[in-house]
């Protein structure tokens, strides 16, 4: 899973090496970059790199120019200070620029907004989204000041001075946000990555078999209405499994399709459909998939099955990469709401665990309660 603290060079290297590995395979690759999920040895290297990057960040501030995170935190404190000052000093400022009545409410609202972005910048681990909010706020401020300049009652000189100040801060904000997004490869590409895992007390091969039979997925992924295996050209024929891949050795393994049509329930009863194909399939170890190029939501993902350290269970890890609509800015903002899709994956994994360990998903839907206006006795 890509970590924003890694340098872009590392990620590019890994992508290239996966591409090389895959060149030898007979399976054609569809859709997006379709990265191979990292093996345990690769993750060890990755951990070392995380440590190196962390120490570089820590030492970097003293000799070279401050890191964008430091600048962002500084801007966070500045935001808080400006916000409090704007709220408390609204009346005085309004009088100073000569717009005693009109400027009062906007100044106060600006104060509240500044405090909110300040908290966002100081509290978030990744300040990119809050920094974008600062830039947005600066644009609004410049707009307000422009409107103030056009008012006849305004003290033009003083408004001009304020505008100059805001413009300077805007330049600083834009520079900071550019550096922040430059080092965050997800934000640059506009793609988001999620990873979730769960430990299940069952052998990996059983879990693999359940998951690989794609028609089972709606049993533990409640957002899916149906999954229909299809053949390559999109028609839903019962069909034989394709040759290629490593299914041959497992004679008891039923033959699986490599493509499927997914139907998901969206909000307000709307349905979304897309097609995806399996791009990697190692029984008992990994299933990787990609949406086909014409899919509405382009995404790829993989589920890995690894024995737990005590060898009695399996660690099931799901990694998903997707392109949220709206690109770069949406990706940064979506991170603020990251618990959303990650929660759905975690919930699905929990249901999968129940299904595999216990055979069904425990529910309380349909149980009695005193809510339906029961009569008192």
């Amino acid at each position, binding site marked *: 899973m890509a970590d924003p603290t890694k340098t872009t060079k590392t990620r590019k290297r890994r992508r290239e090496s996966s591409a090389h590995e895959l060149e030898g395979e007979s399976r054609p690759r569809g859709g997006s970059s379709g990265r191979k999920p990292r093996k345990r040895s690769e993750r060890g290297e990755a951990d070392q790199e995380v440590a190196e990057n962390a120490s570089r960040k820590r030492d970097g501030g003293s000799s070279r120019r401050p890191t964008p995170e430091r600048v962002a935190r500084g801007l966070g404190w500045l935001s808080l200070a400006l916000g409090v000052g704007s709220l408390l000093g609204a009346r005085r400022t309004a009088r100073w620029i000569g717009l005693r009545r009109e400027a009062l409410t906007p100044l106060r609202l600006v104060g509240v907004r500044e405090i909110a972005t300040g908290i966002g910048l100081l509290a978030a681990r990744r300040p990119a989204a809050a920094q974008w909010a600062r830039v947005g706020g600066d644009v609004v401020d410049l707009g307000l000041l422009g409107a103030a300049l056009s008012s006849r009652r305004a003290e033009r000189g003083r408004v001009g001075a304020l505008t100059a100040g805001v413009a300077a801060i805007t330049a600083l904000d834009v520079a900071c946000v550019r550096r922040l997004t430059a080092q965050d490869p997800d934000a640059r590409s506009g793609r988001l990555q999620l990873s979730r895992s769960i430990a299940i*007390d069952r052998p990996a091969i059983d879990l693999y078999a359940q998951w690989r039979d794609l028609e089972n997925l709606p049993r533990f992924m409640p957002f899916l209405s149906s999954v229909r295996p299809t053949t390559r050209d999109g028609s839903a024929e019962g069909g034989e499994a394709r040759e290629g891949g490593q299914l041959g050795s497992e004679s008891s393994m039923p033959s699986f399709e490599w493509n499927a049509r997914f139907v998901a329930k969206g909000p307000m009863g709307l349905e979304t459909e897309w097609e995806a194909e399996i791009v990697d399939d190692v029984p008992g170890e990994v299933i990787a998939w990609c949406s086909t190029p014409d899919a509405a939501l382009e995404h790829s993902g993989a589920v890995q099955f690894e024995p737990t350290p005590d060898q009695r269970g399996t660690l099931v890890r799901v990694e998903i990469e997707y392109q949220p609509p709206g690109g770069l800015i949406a990706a940064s903002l979506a991170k603020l709401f990251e618990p959303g899709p990650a*929660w759905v994956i975690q919930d699905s994994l929990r249901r999968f665990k129940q299904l595999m360990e216990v055979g069904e998903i425990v529910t309380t839907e349909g149980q009695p309660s005193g809510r339906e206006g029961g009569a008192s*006795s």
Partner: protein
Amino acid sequence: MKATCWMGKKHVEVVDVPEPELLNRRDAIVRVTSTAICGSDLHLLNGFIPTMQRGDILGHEFMGEIVDVGPDVRNRRVGDRVVVSFTIGCGECFFCRRELYSCCDNSNPNAWMAEKLFGHATAGAFGYSHLTGGFAGGQAEYVRVPFADVGTVKIENGLADEQVLFLSDILPTAFMAAENCDIERGDTVAIWGCGPVGQLAIRCCFLLGAERVIAIDRIPERLQMASASGAECIHFEDQDVADQLLQQTGGRGPDACMDAVGLEAHAPGLVHSYDRMKQALMLESDRPYVLRQAILACRNGGTVSIPGVYGGFDDKIPMGAMMNKGLTIKTGQTHVPRYFGSLLERIERGDIDASFVITHRLRLDEAAKGYEIFSRKQDDCVKIVMTP
């Protein structure tokens, strides 16, 4: 059917609700013959446990006769007389396999909620808020019991309801709490709280080899009951508990301290006001007065056993005392099914008869009155059992 429902803070009502149905394949439907009100139900009544919804059916101590079973229930049949564990365990997960049933991974449909509060979700339970899954509880005429082959024990020996009902919760709780004291022959155990769990714990400690048990409370009738079980008593409003414990143990402190009170502790004086005020301002979820005392009183290298229920994040816990004195802390929601076999045997042998804690017998439709009496400790109330 009639069921006791939570209608709001300090408001409980018996209303007419639909009868339960089988919802999962390992369910059973039990027709309730006896059900009890628990001290932890009072935390629900007083609004200390979050995620309660108006209309939730309360009650987690109950027993009765199976009237319907799901297709995958292996070892129970219609007509079996059973006591039901308050904690729901699946029997198949990492935790159930290690007999840590109250930590079951698979029995809480609202696992994500509990995860936010505790770091990991724990088992589902009957009638104890949506944090534990929102399962309809047992203060009703019929209850749907998930994983019936794990969470029930069959009663076949003609024992009366009152002798076995408490296998559902308070007897295993008291026994596990006593086990958690790591009692060795000759030990002195101090128990804070002479409610039903405390009373049973006194007897369990003696059963497990304690030499002396010191019981701490402020209600004279409860202290009398404790004394009848062989405990020495301390009235915490009349005496200084810390000082008394030192005097009675020659300055060393009890070998084990048990907090059988939990989050709604009463304390004399300023400390009580401190905790109460913080609770009101939502700065603290519990009142850990007893826990603080137990940690400070325990002898060096001793054990603190905590059956008392706590919910959230607490203040001013003497970590320094805990660390420097090398204390062992043992706690947990009771893993009830673990104790079914051994405790039923002890009851049959006559080692312990838990029915002595029952002071009030009511009908199910008097539940609201029952909660009132129990909550205010009126009328020498210790434990209330209801029959539908």
